[in-house]
């Protein structure tokens, strides 16, 4: 492990700004770390060494000239492979977009670059975000830095694995837990903002009503820095919310005494591995010690959340992925004599098995005769799930629960049964259905040395509170400071 990749992005930024470090040096160092370790992790699908060093050089020149290159000046960041950049390919780890070069960047990429951030590459993911292990990728299988025989989680597994191994800021996207669950598996901090807090313009849609971009980093502080930059109303995303801009980094506090956390009893009922349960209970005790009120609450419709999620996300995905048809961009089958064959062959060849399954389920639940029984029903249950949270947030400021019922599982162990894989999402999907913010942070390890993540879910647009709750915890604990064994000997 190199010296600077162990420091936080906030610290690095300050050093670059005051001139004790150069951005070029920092960027070179991170590329060195990637070249040392990433053959073992395969977290990155692409790195942009040349353009990153050029950008870093400019930042250094600006600083030398006394200019302010922005709040992220010189800090390396990466984006998940489903976020558009003009640099390289944007393919969402799908064959169907092999070679696709976006003619425009996502709003979040623009914002980070304008803030002085240096884009170093794209991270691996489950194809179009569909998966919880980053094994459904056309690119590679990303490994968990804590045990390279285990999955990093998914779908933002590349981003979480990279955050754990290399530090800095890695943007992921979260449709049903895709930021939080891999963050928990890789021992890092990942925030899914409130729906509408961050622009989705330039994010390849999986399920439009659930998708949200968010940061994955080692600490809440770094997430706060990133969120301050990427959040805000975007005129190009109608669903981005018109709420005042916040400086989450400045808002960060360890003064959390007097807050109340709710323990939703339904989240602890079944299927939680004992070691995971223990770590969460220890975390709750620590919060108690920090002066936080703890009370049991009920989210009665919790068990319906995952089936609801399965239906809604598939339905929206079936429509969102219709644009990948081999006509205007992406893979076109050469086995086609007419238009109908072109469609079905291009899509049949281009999409992986899990994406096909979800497209078909989604097409089915929207189709004539089944819409009311499945899609409409799910939208109604979604209302009940949202209502559960509205009621609970009248009593408590946030709820606390495990991020995933299990820690990282061995590669390949859940591939044979897609449904079994869906079950690792049961504790994360509710936040997406309700549109509320959620954060996962490291709260300890299993006896096998795998990280365990705690999840906090908060009221809409109360990211500041969640970040402070985690920040306060992190200032009293060192789980986030432990470095994964993959770095040893690198």
């Amino acid at each position, binding site marked *: 492990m190199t010296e600077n990749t162990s420091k936080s992005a906030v610290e690095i930024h300050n050093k670059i700004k005051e001139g004790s470090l150069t951005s070029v040096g920092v960027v070179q160092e991170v590329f060195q770390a990637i070249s040392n370790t990433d053959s073992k992790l395969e977290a990155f699908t692409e790195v942009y060494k040349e353009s990153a060093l050029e950008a870093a050089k400019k930042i250094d020149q600006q600083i030398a000239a006394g200019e302010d290159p922005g709040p992220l000046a010189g800090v390396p960041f990466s984006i998940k492979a489903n976020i558009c950049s003009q640099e390289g390919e944007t393919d969402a780890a799908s064959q169907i977009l092999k070679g696709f070069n976006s003619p425009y960047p996502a709003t979040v990429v623009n914002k980070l670059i304008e803030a002085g951030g240096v884009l170093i590459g794209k991270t691996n993911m489950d194809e179009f975000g569909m998966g919880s292990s980053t094994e459904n990728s056309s690119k590679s299988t990303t490994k968990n830095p804590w045990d390279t025989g285990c999955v990093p989680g998914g779908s933002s597994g590349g981003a979480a694995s990279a955050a754990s191994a290399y530090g800095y800021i890695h943007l992921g996207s979260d449709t049903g837990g895709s930021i939080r669950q891999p963050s928990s598996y890789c021992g890092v901090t990942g925030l899914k903002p409130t729906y*509408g807090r961050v622009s989705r313009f330039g994010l390849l849609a999986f399920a439009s009503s659930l998708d949200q971009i968010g940061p994955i980093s080692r600490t809440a502080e770094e997430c706060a820095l990133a969120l301050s930059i990427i959040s805000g109303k975007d005129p190009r995303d109608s669903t981005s*919310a018109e709420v005042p801009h916040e400086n989450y980094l400045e808002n960060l506090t360890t003064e959390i005494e007097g807050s109340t956390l709710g323990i939703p009893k339904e989240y602890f009922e079944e299927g939680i591995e004992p070691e995971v349960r223990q770590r969460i209970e220890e975390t709750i005790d620590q919060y108690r010690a920090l002066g936080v009120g703890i009370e049991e609450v009920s989210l009665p419709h919790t068990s319906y959340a995952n089936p*609801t999620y399965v239906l809604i996300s598939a339905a929206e995905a079936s429509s969102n992925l219709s644009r990948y048809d081999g006509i205007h961009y992406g893979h076109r089958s050469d086995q086609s004599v007419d*238009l109908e064959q072109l469609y079905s062959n291009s*899509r049949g060849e281009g999409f992986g098995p899990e994406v096909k*399954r979800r497209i078909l389920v989604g097409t*089915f639940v929207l189709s004539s005769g089944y819409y009311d029984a499945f899609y409409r029903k799910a939208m109604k*249950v979604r*209302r009940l799930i949202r209502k559960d949270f509205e009621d609970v947030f009248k009593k408590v400021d946030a709820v606390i629960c495990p991020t995933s019922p299990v820690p990282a599982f061995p590669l390949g162990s859940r591939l044979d049964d897609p449904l079994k894989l869906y079950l690792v999402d049961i504790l994360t999907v509710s936040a997406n259905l309700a549109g509320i913010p959620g954060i996962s942070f490291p709260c300890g390890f299993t006896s096998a040395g795998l990280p365990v993540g705690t999840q906090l879910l908060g009221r809409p647009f109360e990211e500041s509170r969640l970040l402070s709750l985690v920040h306060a915890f992190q200032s009293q604990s060192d789980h986030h400071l432990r470095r994964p064994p993959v770095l040893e000997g690198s």
Partner: protein
Amino acid sequence: MSIEITEALISHIATLARLGLSESEIAEIQGHFEKVLHYVEALDKLDTESVDPSIFTNDAINMLEQDSPHAPLGQELALKNGPEVDEDSFLVPRIIAEAGNEAGGGKASP
């Protein structure tokens, strides 16, 4: 809602989704459908008769934009990623001409 998941149903859905499937894929998907539908059957237990569907994730309304033009991307960038293009258009296998001169005529779908 009890539904028999037949191969014919899977084929029909695959046609709607324009998704070419091999025979083994159809069989696999058939099994998957059965599991998923069984899994979501849990929702049937809930009485949602008087519940309004939750259509929008947040309360945002009237996100509109003024009617003033921005510069388009332009022909070259528009066609850049096209798998088959000529000097100004995307090319597709011949579409049987409908309604006279113009194939498809736009609004109409076949």
